C-alpha cells in the first residue's frame, strides 16, 4: 500500500504541473494588458510602463512562469491585479463557502441517490424503476442554475422563508446553515440524479454475477443478498466514480454560487472575470483544478485500500 500511495502521488504531480501550465498560458494569451487594465483607459504610456516593470510583466515569460510556480509552492498566489491585495486572503475567505456547499451536495446526493439507485436496479423494469429513471433523467436534464432559480423563486421570493442572496456569517452557525439551505438543496438534488443513475447501472452489472446467484441458491433472504453481496460490491464502482462526481459538483457549485450570490470560489471567479483581474482568475482556476486532482488522488488511494488488486496494476 505504501508503494502504491507513493507511486500514485507521484503521478499526480505532473498532472498538476500540466494543469498549472495550461492555466498560466491561457491567462497570458488572454487579450488585455494587466497594467493597462489596472490603470484604466486614460493612463499615460509612461505610467503603464512603470507599472509593467513593477508587476514584473516585462521580464521573459519563462521567468514569470518559474516565479509563479515558486510562489505557488510557498502558498503565495500573488497579488490581485485590480486592488493589489494578496489573493491568498480572498481565497481563504471564499474556500469555506464553496467547501460547505459541495460537501452538502455530495452527502445529500449519496444519502438519497445510493438507496434509490439500488432500489430501482433491484426492482428493474417495474413501475417504481420507470418513475425513478425518469426522475433521475429529469434531474440530469436540469441546468443547475435553472433549478436554483426555481427554488429561489418559490422558497425565497413567493414564500419568503429563506434568504435570496448571500452566504451568511461563517461564525454564526444558525445563520450560515439558513443561507446554505437552498443552494445546498439545489446542488444536492442534481447530485442525487447523477448518483442514482450511476448506482443503478453499477448494481445492474453485479446482479448477474455468479456470487449473487450462489447467495440466492444457498437460500439467503433477498435482504441479505442485497445488503451483503450486492451493495458491498457495487460500492466499489460507485467509489471509483467519485472523481466524476467531483467535476460535476465543482462545475455545479460555480453556477449555484452565482444564482444565490454566495461569496465562494465560483463567485470570486466570475467577479475576477468581470474586472479582468487575471491574476485572481489564475489563482481561482488553479484552486479548482487542484481540488479535482486532489479528489482524484484520494479516490484512487481509497480504491486501492478497498480493493487490493488495484495496487498491483
Amino acid at each position, binding site marked *: 500500500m505504501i508503494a502504491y500511495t507513493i507511486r500514485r502521488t507521484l503521478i499526480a504531480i505532473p498532472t498538476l504541473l500540466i494543469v498549472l501550465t495550461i492555466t498560466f498560458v491561457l491567462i497570458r494569451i488572454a487579450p488585455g494588458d494587466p497594467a493597462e487594465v489596472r490603470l484604466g483607459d486614460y493612463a499615460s504610456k509612461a505610467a503603464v510602463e512603470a507599472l509593467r516593470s513593477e508587476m514584473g510583466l516585462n521580464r521573459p515569460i519563462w521567468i514569470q512562469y518559474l516565479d509563479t510556480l515558486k510562489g505557488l509552492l510557498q502558498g503565495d498566489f500573488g497579488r490581485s491585479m485590480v486592488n493589489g491585495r494578496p489573493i491568498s486572503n480572498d481565497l481563504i475567505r471564499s474556500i469555506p463557502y464553496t467547501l460547505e456547499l459541495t460537501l452538502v451536495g455530495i452527502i445529500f446526493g449519496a444519502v438519497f441517490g445510493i438507496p434509490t439507485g439500488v432500489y430501482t436496479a433491484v426492482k428493474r423494469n417495474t413501475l417504481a424503476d420507470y418513475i425513478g429513471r425518469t426522475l433521475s433523467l429529469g434531474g440530469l*436534464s436540469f441546468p443547475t442554475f435553472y433549478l436554483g432559480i426555481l427554488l429561489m*423563486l418559490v422558497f425565497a421570493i413567493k414564500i419568503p422563508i429563506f434568504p435570496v442572496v448571500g452566504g451568511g456569517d461563517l461564525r454564526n452557525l444558525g445563520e450560515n446553515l439558513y443561507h446554505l439551505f437552498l443552494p445546498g438543496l439545489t446542488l444536492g438534488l442534481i447530485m442525487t440524479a447523477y448518483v442514482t443513475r450511476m448506482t443503478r447501472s453499477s448494481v445492474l452489472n453485479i*446482479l448477474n454475477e455468479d456470487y449473487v446467484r450462489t447467495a440466492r441458491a444457498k437460500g439467503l433472504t433477498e435482504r441479505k443478498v442485497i445488503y451483503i453481496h450486492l451493495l458491498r460490491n457495487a460500492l466499489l464502482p460507485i467509489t471509483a466514480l467519485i472523481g466524476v462526481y467531483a467535476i460535476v459538483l465543482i462545475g455545479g457549485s460555480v453556477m449555484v454560487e452565482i444564482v444565490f450570490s454566495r461569496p465562494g470560489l465560483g463567485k470570486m471567479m466570475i467577479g475576477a472575470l468581470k474586472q479582468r483581474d487575471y491574476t485572481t482568475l489564475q489563482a481561482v482556476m488553479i484552486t479548482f483544478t487542484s481540488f479535482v486532482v486532489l479528489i482524484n488522488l484520494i479516490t484512487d488511494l481509497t480504491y486501492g485500500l478497498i480493493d487490493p488488486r488495484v495496487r498491483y496494476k
Partner: protein
Amino acid sequence: MKQRSMRRKILRTFFRNRTSIIGACISVAMLLIAILAPWISPYDPLKQNVYYRLTPPERSHLLGTDEYGRDVLSRVFTGARISFLVGVISIALGMLIGTGMGMIGGYAGGRVETGLMRLLDIIMSFPDEVFGVMVMIVLGPGMENVIIAITILMIPRFARMGHAPTLAIKEVDYIASAKSIGASDFRIIMRHILPNIFGEVLVMGTLWLGTAIRLEASLSFLGVGVPPPTPTLGNIVRVGVDFLAVAPWVSVFAGLAILISIFGFNLLGDGLRDITDPKLYAR
C-alpha cells in the same frame, strides 16, 4: 412466474420504445421551433416597446414581455434557434475531430496514443463550466467562440468513444487481412474501423447535444457566452434573474425551454442507446 416475466418483457419493450418516441417527438418539436423561429414568432424578438415593459403573460403576449417590452415568446423561439445552432455545430465538429483523434490514437498506438489521450484526460479533469470560462476569456465573447469552446469540451468525450473500440477492432483478423492486401492506414480507419463505431458515436452525439445546449446556456448565464442583444436561451434567463421578483416569467419560460430541449435529447439518446446496445437485452 413465466407469465410475469412475459408481462415485464412487454412492459419493457413498450417503455423502451415509448421513451425514445417521446424523446424524438420533443426533440423534433424543439428543432422545428428553432428552424421556423423567424416565421412563427409573433413579434420581432429585438423590437422594444416601452409601453409594454414587464407585462405578465396575456393574450397578445403569451409569455409576457421583458424589461424592454420585448415579447418573451418570440425571444425564446429565436433564443432556441441560436442555442440549437451552437449545440448542433459544436457537436458535429466535436464528433468529427474527437472521434478522428480517438481512432487515430487507438490505431497508431505507442507515444502518439499516450500523449493524445493524456492531453484529453487533462481537459476532462477540468469542470466543464470552469474550462469553458477559461477558453472564453482567451477567445473573447461571440457566437463563433462559444462554438469553439463547446467543441473543445466535446472533443475528449468523442475521442474516448472512438478510442476504446478501435483498440479492440484493430486486433481482429479482417484488419490484418486488409493490411496484407495493402490497404492504407487511412483506408483501414475509414472503411473498416469507422463503420463499426459510427452508430454508437451518433447515438452519443444525440445524448451530448443536450449537454452542449446546457453548456451554451451555462456560459451565457455566467456572462461569457453569446453577448446581447442576440437572444440565446441562457442569456434570456440571465437577464430575467434581475427581475425575478417582479417578472418571473422571463427566466422561468426561457429556462423551461432549455429544460425541455435537454430532456428531449436525453430521452431520445438514452432510448436509442438501450435499443442499439445488445448487451442490455440479456438483462
